[in-house]
């Protein structure tokens, strides 16, 4: 469990990092918090010829208010998100979910952008980026671009980022009024990756569901939205039977597989239970808000 040899570059600016990546296309990897990459190196599952360390690039870890929403710099640590007042006010679902990201030691080092770029289908930030219709900003040799979350997660551990592109910032657009959230996760132990996780937001108009979004983690090659279940909810009065039905629909829309911790069947069942619970909790909060 020792990594194979690699070259190491400590970048002091984004341009320097992009330049370094461009010099060894396909061979260089960014090192952010290292909480996913270093285990892969130690298991020799990754053999990058070069690591480009972005930890010393100033200014890319900021959490900023933006037009009712927030912008989260790629290097913001999980822990910074967990304790951010601004996030707690605007996106309390992130605050709640942060507690599920590994353990404190991991949260102190792991980064928001690293998690999204790594794109583990069971990780919390990718599924929340998808839920919140995040705008993911990247910079590469060809300049900067913005990728909507729905287009970002392509397949298992794979994203729309190019070889020499760096994820720089993630914008979470403001949520409408009368919106509540629910986050439900089941893992074997606290801090483990989810067997299944469901995040939901519900916007109410009186007792009627004006809009609902559901995203699912750990039950497909990428984090998934549940468009059928979302459609089923829209325009209907919020009630337990509806949430139950939406849970079943979401389960159909999930695409889990077997592993040493659980079977696909059980995960699909979890989606229905967790979706029902997340929607119930989201609707309650929306009604209060």
């Amino acid at each position, binding site marked *: *469990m*020792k*990594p*194979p*040899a690699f070259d190491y570059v400590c970048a002091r600016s984004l341009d320097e990092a992009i330049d370094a990546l461009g010099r060894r296309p396909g061979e260089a990897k960014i090192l952010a918090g290292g909480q996913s990459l270093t*285990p892969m190196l130690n*298991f*020799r599952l990754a053999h990058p010829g070069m690591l480009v360390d972005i930890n010393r690039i100033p200014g890319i870890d900021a959490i900023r208010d933006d037009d009712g929403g927030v912008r989260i710099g790629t290097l913001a640590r999980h822990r910074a998100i967990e304790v951010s007042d601004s996030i707690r006010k605007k996106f309390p679902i992130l605050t709640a979910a942060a507690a599920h990201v590994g*353990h404190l030691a991991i949260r102190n080092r792991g980064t928001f952008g690293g998690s999204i770029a790594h794109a583990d289908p069971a990780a919390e930030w990718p599924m929340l980026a998808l839920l919140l219709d995040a705008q993911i900003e990247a910079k590469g040799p060809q300049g900067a671009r913005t990728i909507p979350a729905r287009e970002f997660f392509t397949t298992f551990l794979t994203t729309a980022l190019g070889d020499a592109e760096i994820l720089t910032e993630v914008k979470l657009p403001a949520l409408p009024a009368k919106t509540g959230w629910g986050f439900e996760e*089941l893992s*074997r*132990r*606290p*801090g*483990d*990756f989810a*067997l299944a996780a469901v995040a939901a937001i519900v916007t109410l108009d009186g007792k009627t569901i004006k809009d609902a979004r559901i995203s699912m983690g750990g039950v497909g090659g990428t984090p998934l939205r549940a468009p059928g279940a979302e459609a089923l909810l829209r325009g209907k009065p919020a009630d337990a039977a509806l949430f139950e039905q939406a849970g079943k629909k979401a389960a159909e829309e999930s695409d889990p597989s077997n592993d*040493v*911790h*659980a*079977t696909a069947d*059980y995960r699909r*069942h*979890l989606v229905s*239970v*967790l979706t029902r*619970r997340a929607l119930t909790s989201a609707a309650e909060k929306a009604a209060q808000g």
Partner: protein
Amino acid sequence: MAVTKLVGARVTRVEDPRFLCGQARYVEGIQLPGMLHIAYVRSAHAHARILAVDAKQAEALPGVHRVFTGADIASLGPMGQPFRADVFPHPVFKQCVWPCLATGKVRYVGEPIAAVLADTRYIAEDAAELVEVQYDPLPAVIDPEAALLPGAALLHEEFGDNVVMKVSGGGGDADAALRGAALVVRDRFRTNRHCAMPMEGRATLAAPGPDGDLTLWTSTQTPHLVRSRVAAIMGFPEQKLRVVGPDVGGGFGLKCHVFAEEVLACFFAREVGRPVKWIEDRREHFLGSFHAKDLVVDCEMGFDADGTLLGMRADIIGDLGAYSADPWPSPFEALQLAAALPGPYRVRHYAYDVRCVCTNKTTLSVYRGVGLPAAVLVQEQLMDVAARKLGLDPAEIRRRNLIAPSEFPYDSITGLHYDSSSSSDALEKGLAAIDYDGFRARQRAAREQGRLLGIGICTYIEMTTFGTHYWAPLGIEHSAYESATVRFDAQGGVTLSVGTFSHGQGHHTTYAQMLADELGIAIEDVRFEQGDTSATAYGWGTWGSRSVVAGGGAVVGAARKVRDKMMRIASHVLEVAPEDLEIAPGKIVVKGAPQRSLAVREIARIAVYSSWRLPPGEDPGLEATQYYDPPPVTFANATHIAEVEIDPGTGRVEIPRYLVVEDCGVMINPRIVEAQVVGGIAQGLGNALYEHHLYDENGQLLTTSLMDYLVPTAADVPDVRVEHIETPTPLTVNGVKGMGEGGSIGAPAAVLNAVADALAPFGASVRELPLHPERVWRLIHESGSDTRA
């Protein structure tokens, strides 16, 4: 006699600062000039012939010093100490041949085939990837029952089958007892394969010294045993081999074995004339250390109509993996299970059959609790099943069958001499402490709201200590006595050196408490020495909950020899008869006239420094060594009660309350006792809820990281309340019984019973661990009924 009385006090552990402040010294921390690093090339196949091993490319890599293969180590004897043939002759037990590096054939994924010695571990691993092994894969046998079938692939062809041990035993007439029973409950239990998972894996560093000497630093629980076995396997003079166990980060029984990697480190160091180090990484630990607990148990128990246990029978299959461990033959897990199955209950009719089979999996051997966690699980779950069928409460059926206090000493049907026990008191105390009746009321109310609460009781009697005369009739070649040396220096400080090996148990503290009471010294006066075969008399290390009885007995024995001499010196100096003297803190005083005294420091100075002041005829020095062979077994007992709540929607199990009433006889230090209990429970919860090694049909281990093989972390262990009963045993020096393994023995059964209790309305039969959410959910779901979350 002792006035100070530190025995029994909640003394804070004196060894903690070194561990908490990063001052501990593990093998990994020892750096020697010119040291090379080993990386092992391990088998990628579960079962295959090795056609060729080509190390040319690896040897050509800069920084690589040498690559060894099976052909290079032909002079090393095989691993494995068989049972004595007078007890278990072939073919009752068949000793397989286990070379230190595979030659001819590999029998499990992870078996070492070659070793690369290089300047750094990084280079060694790079080179290990370049060693080309040509395999001719053979069919692999993974399931222990499949291994029994005719036509199954054979691991050790010379045996003709895969059964390496077959024994039967028991007593009375189990068939008749079961025939006459009003109720027979039976079930099949399959225990989950585990591994010990200490924080520090195995680690070895061997260095050649002058005059052809060798020193081996190794992460072990049993340095003297390693020395004897390594010397024997190498054919090396034992007096020239020094084995040192430095600080060790956990062992749990795994490290009371002798490993090929220890022999090889010594061999390589001699061959290359340089120090060589190997630190097991986590992946190697999963694949290459021993596993534990892979058992299939069919058990039936017969009761009369009022719940009296009439007799029982068990058919046990032990999966040993590929080889039999050294120096404890691997069948022990299954044999201990068979011996322990009747437990704390009155059983007069019992029969068991044990078959141990080889499979193409990592070798299995003893681990904390050895056989007892499984025995207790089977026995305690069947007790509950019987209670349910008879309409009795689980507490009540236990009351009716526990051996009563008045019946001790009690000779069990498997030949165990239960000297003393407080099983019934522990049960009643536990039920009261957890408010058992109150729980049942809460449980009923919760069920009406669709919440699933359960409570599980587990009552067990635990073998501890295991002296030489426990092992001898079981055909073990080696002994299990202990030794201790107490030596005063000229200032009155004491060096205590022992043959046991603390690797987390706090022996420095407990032994110092004992010494302080015996010698009138302070705990801080004691320097503690263990683990270095050059500095300690022969002893057998620490395992089997033995140290406080075996090691403590030796410590007290040595202290008393020294104390007698102190009395003689004081008697001479104070001109008072020895009978009129007694020990007080720091001095020896005249009974009834405490102003007349002689300081212990002064006595030490006389004996060690100014020996001209000694009484005539008295030898100089103030030191004694005591060898002590403890009783064959001492019996601790406990009741565990776990309360669980299950999420009906997901199957997730929570443990809001956990209570233990334990009795390990006289406690030296309740704080250490409690910590051992809680630590054991943490491991038992691993057994109950998380840990499980999975193999695919080709014998590939699927659980080779801590993301796949889950162990409980501090965050996953509930608050455990520990209550005590102290029933001294007449068999030991000061009434102590062994302790340490207990928590891990009781927890799996307590949790399983609690889950079964919670799921009783569904008629679910719970007999497999771990109780991960999916398994529990299926137990609910597949029982037909439904409950809303």
